[in-house]
């Protein structure tokens, strides 16, 4: 005996040691299960709970992969009995915490009864944070957030709690459970989508079963129950417990005596935890007093009731159908098969064929048979023959009376059967007529339509051969809207054929009289001729033309359907606003190069007017600057002084010298003045984040770029490492991740070099600058000749500014081609380099997704470069946009979002101004771009909450900007320094430099526009928020009061 005890102890220690080691846990557990009696199993599991971090609370919502949780691997499943034993042991080990969880869950259940969703949220947060993080808790949190605060709040919560770019199982789960389960989704499509996406997402069978179980809640079969339990033992005891409760519900319904032992054990655990659901489940099911006795009696009763229904059509039909469904659910498969046969016998009497209710019941029978497909009995029945009988009936008798139609409508399952029948009989038009009639009478019928069958049936050939029928277009639209979005092209095809039938190319040309307009006409114009469907049409070569057609359609609808005129007016307004925004964004793209004429004019009056007057005095005195002398002076002015002596040399011709001085100084100020010159705009609108965002975006969208730390070291690419790991080995994946870090570094070098060397005014320090402001000799001589006869300094300045723009335009023309060639060659080199590194690293097949991503990035980059080059022109359009302040803010935000694809702030604008503004586009967007760019860079969040309040105060619009900030204390010092400089007016040196807070630039934007000022900005530590308050002054003629 002592020997045996020692052996056993050794085995325990060995098992425990194995349990500590990675990858041996399952084996250890299996050995434990094989060796130890049941009572010892509990002890081992309890020890395992303490040894592993698996069941500790607050380990976070998002382990990157379930298999990485340091716990029992879920790769193999034990028989259900053993999984269940482990489950019970785990729950036993967590008894105290389970009770705490159930107590709080009970509180939630109470609150839910009164629909008090908001108060549930702190409780579920306590469960998740203090007791145990679980998918069940996550589910509940997501649902409650949606119910209490709406869909947007739910989306925001999900995104703020998601990690790792949404690639983890947990994020997948949260996304589908939250966003994709929004109310407007068709449940069938949701279910179908989930199943297909789960297969695409997950790498193993266990994850498949687990996700499907949670997201689509199918019935748990015995073979999947073990998998689910196994999976849940790797996550949390709360999930495990809830799976047991769900399992119990299914077991109870199945009435299988073999699973009684599971039931008793789970009920016992529920009772000990004081779960309110225990009382309900322990007396379940209320429907059948005895599982053994009910089928026979119900079966005989059924025959009588069917007889009754058939003799008096529709009587009690709804109640009977509901009862049959419940009955079918509670029967096991064998009994269900018997019931099918018995019901079929009741229906076989030939005299009853042709009766409407007969076919309804028959359909119900056969559809239930489909549910029981795994049965031997059901398999023996030819379902198709049942349906073809139904089909034959409706194909030959498609002349419904009004009463039939009403009956049909009320018994919606019938519609399903008839639709399938008609489709099988190739009676597409009849079928579409039936569906569209019923749908337009009551849209709830959609849930009963066999959309999948319709999707298969409505091929191009079918649509083509029944072209011209409005009903075909309506049904195609229903399939698209409620089943497959990618059916849009077919809807458009059906609509096009309908238009052709009526001899028009555009829906707005349809001739429909108000007196004779039908519901179908309205539906066609409203829904089928939507902007979305029109985008498939070949009639509109651009978005603008398509939107214009939609506006014409909406005007037509306003006349034909005045009851909904307001809805159509709203859509027209939305389209017009969208067009305004697009137009404004286009204007802004072409307004990046600028200088401030008015401040420079004032400066010239102060500094240069005396020289100008002296120049004219010399000319009046007979000393004109001969062309040859002027040439010499121009040449001298373009050369840097060779030594100090030259500064004191006597000019060969004083008038010529004065003239070149004036031109030289004006040119310098227009180009390089820190506040008003072109260089300050290059810094504000291009160098400060815009170029970098534009050139990095295509590669960022493909997750190819990483960032550097404070020492300049670029991090390895984790996204591609994880993505490639399943197909390759760790060392190769790691090598690729390193290559991509290097790729990011040289990519950023090209971007930074381009920004700092090319997007500049050309000087000795920046010889590659694209803007060469120096005039040619001919231009100066010609301008000098004009100036002899012009003594008006302002006219002279007008002429100069005109000439200056001409020179800038000329230099940009050359610069664009240089830039295009430079960027293409630099980036081509980088992409070729990374491609060759990848080819050396490993097998082609394993990195095809990465190569595709590089191709996408390269192609996108070409477009980005083309767009960037188009910005490098002098402004071609005058700002004629008249916009609401709210729109102006949205434009500023949109400009930043376009450059940073992951930046999606939750923007709330509170606009009390009730006005539209003219001439405000540039000012607003310059200011708002800086603010949003700052939020993007420094908030530490991809989806920060940004609140903007707009108020009118006399002739001022006050803007209060507040943005959430993750670590405000990190920015306090920098912002305080910037604040000091701005309010001491000591910031002009920083306007044309990049990096930093951007506030000197903001102060410059607000100040020089002379219509506004930066009132204050800073950090509000208490609210963890950054704020900025601005004021825009406006003239009366710049404001347009909103029309009622």
């Amino acid at each position, binding site marked *: 005996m002592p020997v045996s005890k020692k052996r056993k102890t050794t085995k325990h220690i060995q098992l425990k040691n194995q349990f500590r080691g990675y990858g041996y846990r399952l084996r250890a557990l299996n050995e434990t299960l094989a060796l130890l009696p049941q009572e010892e199993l509990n002890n081992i599991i309890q020890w395992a709970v303490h040894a592993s971090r698996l069941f500790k609370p607050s380990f976070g919502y998002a382990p990157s992969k379930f298999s990485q949780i340091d716990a029992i691997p879920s790769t193999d499943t034990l028989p259900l009995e053993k999984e269940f034993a482990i489950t019970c042991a785990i729950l036993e080990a967590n008894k105290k915490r389970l009770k705490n969880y159930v107590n709080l869950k009970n509180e939630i259940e109470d609150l839910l009864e009164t629909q008090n969703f908001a108060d549930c949220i702190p409780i579920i947060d306590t469960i998740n944070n203090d007791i145990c993080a679980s998918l069940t808790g996550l589910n509940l949190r997501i649902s409650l957030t949606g119910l209490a605060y709406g869909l947007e709040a739910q989306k925001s919560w999900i995104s703020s709690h998601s990690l790792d770019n949404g690639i983890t199982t947990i994020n997948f789960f949260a996304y589908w459970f939250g966003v994709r389960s929004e109310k407007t989704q068709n449940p069938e499509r949701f279910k179908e989508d989930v199943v297909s996406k789960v297969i*695409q997402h997950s790498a193993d069978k266990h994850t498949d079963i687990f996700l499907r179980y949670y997201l689509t809640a199918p019935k748990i079969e015995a073979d999947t129950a073990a998998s689910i339990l196994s999976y849940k033992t790797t996550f949390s005891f709360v999930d495990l417990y809830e799976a047991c409760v769900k399992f119990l519900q299914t077991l109870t319904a199945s009435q299988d005596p073999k699973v009684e032992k599971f039931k008793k054990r789970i009920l016992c655990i529920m009772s000990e935890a004081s779960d309110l659901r225990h009382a309900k489940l322990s007396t379940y099911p209320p429907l059948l007093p005895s599982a053994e006795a009910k089928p026979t009696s119900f079966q005989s009763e059924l025959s009588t009731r069917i007889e009754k229904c058939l003799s008096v059509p529709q009587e009690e039909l709804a109640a009977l159908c509901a009862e049959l469904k419940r009955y079918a659910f509670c029967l096991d498969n064998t009994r269900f098969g018997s019931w099918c046969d018995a019901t079929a016998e009741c229906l076989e009497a030939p005299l009853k064929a042709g009766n409407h209710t007969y076919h309804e019941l028959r359909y119900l029978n056969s559809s239930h048979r489909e549910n029981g497909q795994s049965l031997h009995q059901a398999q023996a029945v030819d379902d198709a023959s049942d349906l073809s009988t139904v089909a034959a009936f409706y194909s030959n008798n498609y002349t419904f009376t009004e009463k039939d139609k009403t009956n049909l409508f009320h018994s919606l399952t019938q519609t399903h059967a008839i639709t399938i029948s008609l489709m099988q009989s190739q009676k597409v038009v009849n079928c579409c007529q039936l569906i569209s009639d019923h749908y337009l009478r009551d849209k709830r019928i959609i849930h009963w339509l066999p959309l999948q069958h319709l999707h298969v049936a409505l091929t*191009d050939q079918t649509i083509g051969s029944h072209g011209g029928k409005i009903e075909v277009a309506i049904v195609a639209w229903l399939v698209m809207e409620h089943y497959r979005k990618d059916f849009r092209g077919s809807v458009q095809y059906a609509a096009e054929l309908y238009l052709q039938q009526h001899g028009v190319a555009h829906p707005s040309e349809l001739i429909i009289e108000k007196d004779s307009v039908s519901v179908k006409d309205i539906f066609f114009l409203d829904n089928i001729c939507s902007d979305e469907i029109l985008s498939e049409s*070949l009639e509109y*070569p651009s978005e*603008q033309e398509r939107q214009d057609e939609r506006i014409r359609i909406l005007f037509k609808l306003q006349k034909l359907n005045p009851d909904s005129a307001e809805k159509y007016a709203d859509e027209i307004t939305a389209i017009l606003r969208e067009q305004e925004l*697009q137009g404004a964004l286009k204007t802004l793209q072409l307004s990046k190069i600028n200088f401030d004429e008015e401040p420079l004019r004032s400066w010239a009056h102060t500094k240069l007017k005396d020289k100008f007057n002296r120049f004219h005095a010399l000319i009046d005195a007979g000393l004109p600057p001969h062309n040859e002398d002027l040439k010499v002076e121009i040449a001298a002015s373009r050369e840097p002084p060779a030594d100090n002596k030259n500064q004191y040399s006597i000019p060969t011709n004083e008038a010529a010298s004065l003239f070149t001085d004036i031109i030289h100084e004006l040119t310098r100020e227009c180009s390089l003045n820190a506040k008003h010159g072109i260089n300050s705009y290059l810094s504000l609108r291009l160098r400060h984040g815009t170029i970098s965002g534009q050139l990095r975006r295509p590669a960022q969208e493909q997750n190819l770029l990483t960032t550097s730390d404070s020492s300049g070291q670029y991090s390895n690419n984790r996204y591609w490492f994880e993505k490639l790991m399943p197909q390759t080995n760790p060392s190769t994946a790691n090598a690729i991740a390193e290559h991509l870090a290097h790729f990011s570094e040289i990519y950023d070098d090209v971007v930074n070099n381009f920004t700092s060397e090319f997007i500049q005014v050309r000087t000795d320090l920046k010889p590659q600058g694209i803007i060469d402001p120096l005039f040619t000799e001919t231009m100066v001589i010609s301008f000098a000749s004009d100036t002899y006869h012009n003594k008006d300094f302002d006219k002279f300045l007008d002429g100069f500014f005109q000439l200056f723009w001409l020179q800038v335009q000329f230099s940009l023309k050359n610069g664009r081609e240089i830039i295009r060639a430079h960027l293409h060659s630099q980036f081509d080199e980088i992409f070729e380099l990374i*491609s060759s590194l990848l080819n050396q690293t490993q097998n082609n097949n394993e990195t095809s*997704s990465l190569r595709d991503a590089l191709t996408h990035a390269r*192609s996108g980059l070409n477009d980005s470069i*083309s767009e960037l080059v188009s910005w490098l022109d002098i402004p071609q359009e005058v700002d004629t946009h008249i916009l609401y302040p709210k729109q102006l803010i949205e434009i500023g935000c949109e400009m930043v979002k376009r450059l940073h694809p992951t930046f999606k702030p939750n923007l709330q604008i509170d606009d009390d101004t009730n006005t539209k503004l003219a001439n405000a586009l540039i000012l607003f967007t310059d200011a708002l771009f800086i603010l949003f760019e700052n939020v993007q860079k420094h908030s530490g969040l991809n989806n920060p909450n940004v609140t903007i309040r707009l108020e009118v105060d006399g002739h001022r619009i006050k803007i209060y900007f507040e943005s959430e900030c993750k670590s405000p204390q990190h920015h306090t010092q920098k912002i305080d320094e910037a604040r000091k400089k701005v309010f001491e007016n000591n910031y002009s040196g920083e306007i044309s430099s990049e990096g930093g807070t951007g506030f000197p630039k903001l102060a410059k934007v607000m100040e020089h526009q002379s219509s506004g000022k930066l009132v204050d900005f800073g950090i509000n530590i208490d609210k963890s928020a950054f704020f900025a308050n601005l004021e825009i002054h406006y003239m009366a003629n710049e404001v347009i009061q909103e029309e009622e």
Partner: protein
Amino acid sequence: MKILLVEDDDNKRSNILSEIENISEKNEIRSESSLISGLRQTRSWNPDLIILDMTLPNYDGNSGQSTGQMHAFGGREFLKRIRRLNFTGKVVIVTQFESFGESSKPISLEDLMNEIEVDYPEYFLGYIYYHASISDWQNKLISIVTDFGDKIENPNS
């Protein structure tokens, strides 16, 4: 022979054009850069051969206009739509991607082309994997276009 190139990538378009322009002076060549513009051109011009990209935007992006939605399977959509137009010519697909669709469950180029060959046998002339720095695609394209041109000129040979 009338050849229509439907391709949105500027570089790729220019490389393909420079190859096919040298094949025969008799060929008339046009190019479009989006699904809709390509289909409009097909409808109005009725080319003999279409060289088609697989991933296409809905509209041209000229003059800063939005290109609209990007169709990952734009080429397949194009084939479906030309059937509605009763197009009678042939199509060769030139793509620079090795897989298509969502990254979690992509379809390989080969599988996609097999599907297209089965679904659109009346149009499908073949496909070419394009890579800017590998010359295989040029030879294959020239060969397909030349052979098809010969067949049009000598339908009985």
